[in-house]
């Protein structure tokens, strides 16, 4: 006797989430100076190439050893690495996080950061992935299914300073690949 429960629809995060969702140092998953800390940064842009100043990005990812964080304290930023981060975009659509690079969760799996995107004007959240650049991304079976051109939208770019750049384009040229999971 299984009853089917139909999911509640999503709605836009609206323009004023800025006082509801962001929390202190939500974009800092680790303290400055933590060994292995990396800056992950990018811009959220619309179909005209303009930065979106009222978007919110969430990250959720494994620890460097590939384990899934299970400690509480995601909102506290008390030095516990909890694998979750949240940042609102600035006036130019820019965001940044300080975090640790995730390791593969299974032998040979390409490490990635799960990303959720919210914005005013976006009626439901979008999911995507930021894969770490490198050999594993070259051979990953999921990425291999995509056109090479679209595939690149899911792989972060290593900048000269060692940081990772991951831009999110909601529409148009270079539109980011967004993911759909079975309900």
């Amino acid at each position: 006797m299984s009853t089917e429960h139909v999911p509640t629809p999503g709605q836009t995060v609206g323009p004023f989430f800025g006082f509801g969702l962001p929390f202190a140092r939500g974009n800092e998953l680790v303290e400055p100076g933590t060994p292995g800390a990396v800056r992950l940064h990018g811009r959220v842009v619309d179909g005209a190439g303009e930065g979106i100043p009222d978007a919110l990005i969430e990250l959720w990812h494994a620890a460097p050893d590939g384990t899934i964080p299970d400690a509480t304290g995601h909102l506290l930023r008390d030095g516990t690495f909890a694998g979750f981060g949240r940042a609102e975009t600035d006036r130019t659509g820019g965001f940044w996080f300080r975090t640790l690079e995730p390791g593969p969760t299974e032998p040979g799996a390409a490490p990635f950061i799960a990303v959720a995107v919210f914005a005013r004007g976006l009626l439901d959240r979008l999911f995507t992935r930021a894969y770490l650049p490198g050999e594993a991304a070259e051979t990953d079976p999921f990425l291999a299914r995509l056109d090479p051109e679209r595939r690149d939208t899911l792989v972060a770019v290593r900048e000269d300073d060692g940081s990772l750049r991951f831009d999110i384009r909601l529409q148009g040229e270079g539109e980011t690949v967004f993911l759909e999971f079975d309900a």
Partner: protein
Amino acid sequence: MGERAMTPELEPQERLSAEIAELHAAYDAARAAGAPAETRPRLDFGPYRSSLLRHPTKDPVHADPETIELFSPVFGERDISPLEADLTIQRRGEPIGERIVVRGRVIDGDGRPVRRQLVEVWQANAGGRYIHKRDQHPAPLDPNFTGVGRTLTDDDGWYEFVTIKPGPYPWRNHYNAWRPAHIHFSLFGSEFTQRIVTQMYFPGDPLFPLDPIYQSIVDPAARARLVAEYDHGITRHEWATGYRWDIVLSGTRRTVFEHDLAEEHDDEH
């Protein structure tokens, strides 16, 4: 005054309403011809003008959730204070407006309770004003109301907030555009693929048919899922009126562990 009086460039409600009616009629026709029900808002919904350049034009790529996506961030008792669930006690005095209790259950698509997960809310005050620097609506700010709350669901998936009924407010989508009163909700499930942000509305709001954001859910039954129900059992004597709003997240792909099953069995008692 001047700015509000001089906005002839904004489109009239009639034009927006006609576009909404056309999109809904096309959906009804497709349904009659056997198309499946749509349970989510349309990302590409023209009457919500802000969505024009902010919706992906390519279909999402189907993915099997991989390890990290099959788990959710873990929030615990130490992340939030139990006082954060009462939005009427965050400042020195009583906020102005109709005090309400909003209570409901968060379950997944299989009917399992979403346990001990974070529920976040934010909303306008009774005058329809947010505490936000970009909110220029000239309605009064309430010094005793921040409009932000957090709680964790209990072991059976229940959440409860005490707050003030928000007011409707104008926005610039078109001429004389007003949002129906609503409370924003942010939810996590037992896996990250269940993450959702949505809005709870109040029953009988006359602004429903006029609102492109609410109407972006073209299926009437799906739309109705965002409307809370007045519940006299939640209403408190000489204190607050009560609303019931249940939230269903998508199903989970997570393996059901033995201890989960044991807990579910306990729920039946």
